[in-house]
């Protein structure tokens, strides 16, 4: 397809490229990030990204707060799947403090993390549809996110920024209503996901919009530090849940969907298949949790009195419980000195927490390894030479969450 060159009248200045500001406030940029595109007609020649429009100084803020107060900060990283961030932070603290969580806690965590992953991928895939012009799928699917929010509400009380769980487990046992809601989700969700999938997966228009655009090879993706669904779409089967299992993921059977070319269609397909795999993991975890009977079914936290608030009845009657309660609430627990790096498989890839503790009540340095920040650098390479509309599709299929980009 050759570009037609128009003959300009004598004496006019021929500019070769147009500068377009896809500014921080734009319906296509989901979250605040700015791309200044140089366009030759409709083709992208180069782009320059500016981020930092929602920089909230999490890392400096974390140096002020004791460990359990940092959970509220981690919520706001990838806010579409906040429980994964919370659990990742608790795993980091447990690694530093040497707390071992019982199996039931691990399985409950797996249920919540996979629900969060489904919730994140649902937003991404339906927004890819919205950007291609298909708004219906988004509305269908938002209703099922409401059911996931209801499950979070039963467990921790909040819908979006969940602050779920504590170092060592959960703050309360899952109620029967929570289990009923999980069952209802497992029963009703598969056909919804199938209906959503059928709208897009062999849809000629969607395939034409997304195939062949925004592709990246596996070597370049690895060099750019891609992780998560974007890397798996490029052909590398690296998933932290399998390669460095945390929270008893090794007890579950699931597949890792892998793409070929790393283009937008592959990313959409990988996320879609991951939702099916997450559903199967939730079913397995739910059955495993139901297998705990009697006294074991009451276990919802680790036995770590120095870091997990003791029962209120004990606080009023026993001396050690009172002292532990006081120390935990005032943030004066003994934190060992050391540095630890723990990573979890977030909705977008390897979410890492690098925690350096000097024995004080707050971390000396906490660094979040945010997957979105790392792979957004590759955006220029992904869209060079493609059309403007493909650039928009690429941006939304990368699943850029501004909170995670800037932290």
């Amino acid at each position, binding site marked *: 397809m050759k570009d037609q060159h128009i003959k300009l009248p004598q004496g006019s200045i021929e500019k070769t490229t147009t500068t377009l500001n896809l500014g921080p406030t734009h*319906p296509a940029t989901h979250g605040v990030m700015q791309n200044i595109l140089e366009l030759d007609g409709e083709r992208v020649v180069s782009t320059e990204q500016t981020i930092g*429009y929602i*920089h*909230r*100084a999490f890392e400096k*803020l974390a140096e002020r707060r004791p460990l359990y107060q940092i959970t509220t900060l981690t919520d706001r990283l990838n806010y579409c799947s906040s429980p994964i961030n919370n659990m990742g932070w608790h795993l980091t603290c447990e690694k530093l403090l040497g707390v071992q969580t019982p199996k039931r806690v691990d399985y409950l965590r797996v249920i919540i993390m996979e629900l969060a992953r489904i919730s994140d991928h649902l937003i991404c895939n339906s927004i890819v549809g919205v950007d291609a012009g298909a708004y219906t799928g988004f509305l269908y699917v*938002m*209703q099922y996110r409401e059911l996931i929010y209801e499950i979070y509400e039963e467990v921790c009380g909040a*819908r979006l920024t969940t602050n779920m769980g504590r170092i060592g487990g959960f703050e309360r046992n899952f109620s029967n209503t929570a289990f009923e809601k999980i069952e209802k989700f497992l029963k009703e969700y598969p056909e919804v996901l199938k209906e959503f999938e059928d709208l897009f997966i062999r849809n000629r228009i969607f395939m034409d919009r997304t195939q062949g655009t925004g592709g990246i090879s596996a070597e370049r993706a690895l060099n750019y530090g891609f992780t998560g669904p974007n890397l798996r779409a490029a052909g590398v089967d690296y998933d932290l849940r399998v390669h460095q299992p945390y929270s008893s993921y090794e007890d579950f059977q699931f597949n890792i969907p892998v793409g070929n070319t790393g283009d937008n269609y592959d990313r959409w397909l990988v996320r879609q298949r991951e939702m099916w795999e997450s559903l199967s993991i939730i079913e397995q975890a739910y059955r495993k949790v139901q297998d705990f009977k009697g006294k074991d079914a009451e276990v919802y936290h680790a036995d770590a009195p120095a870091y997990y608030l003791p029962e209120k009845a004990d606080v009023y009657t026993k001396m050690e419980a009172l002292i532990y309660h006081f120390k935990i609430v005032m943030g004066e627990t003994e934190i060992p000195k050391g540095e630890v790096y723990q990573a979890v498989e977030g909705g977008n890839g390897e979410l890492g927490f690098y925690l350096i503790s000097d024995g004080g009540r707050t971390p000396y340095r906490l660094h979040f390894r945010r997957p979105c920040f790392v792979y957004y650098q590759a955006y220029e390479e992904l869209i060079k030479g493609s059309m403007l509309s493909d650039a928009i599709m690429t941006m939304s299929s990368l699943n850029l969450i501004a*909170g995670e980009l800037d932290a």
Partner: protein
Amino acid sequence: MSRPVSYNLVQKPLESDLSMAELPEVHMGDGFFATSLSKVVGLARKNSIWPLPFATSCCGIEFMATMGSHYDLSRFGSERVGFSPRQCDLLMVMGTIAKKMGPVVKQVYLQMAEPRWVIAVGACASSGGIFDTYSVVQGIDQVIPVDVYVPGCPPRPEAIIDGVMRIQDLVEKESIRRRDSDQYRALLESYGIQ
């Protein structure tokens, strides 16, 4: 495919399900209907506010849930969300505004045509929220005048709808001369807006 509503157990007759807008104070008679222009204009405006969702972070996701079919903001006439400030009435600032983003908010506000209203959704937009840091504007009222503040982190969709309903009250009761008044001009001057 919609899941059955499980809490609505009492069947309501259809008449009480419909809600009609309240008539303002009018003088009615055979063939005529007299009221003040403010009231009619207010009534018309309040049920067709076109919002501009300036969604920066987590509150934006709750806004998406509000626009979805479960909580449905379009019942209130806000079906058409626009992204161009030139065409919108209500600037809904949802999420943290960092110092880098402050000038952008101001520019979007300046581009809106009168009458315009601003709603600060969430703790971060109202007062900086949990981020009392060097890079966050402690509330967007440092930058633009705000009409309604919705607290919450993030506020539930019902709270966002409540905020929009308070804006509707403001729109209904507003005098049509307010935007030319000295008091309003003084307010804009205090923000450095001409």
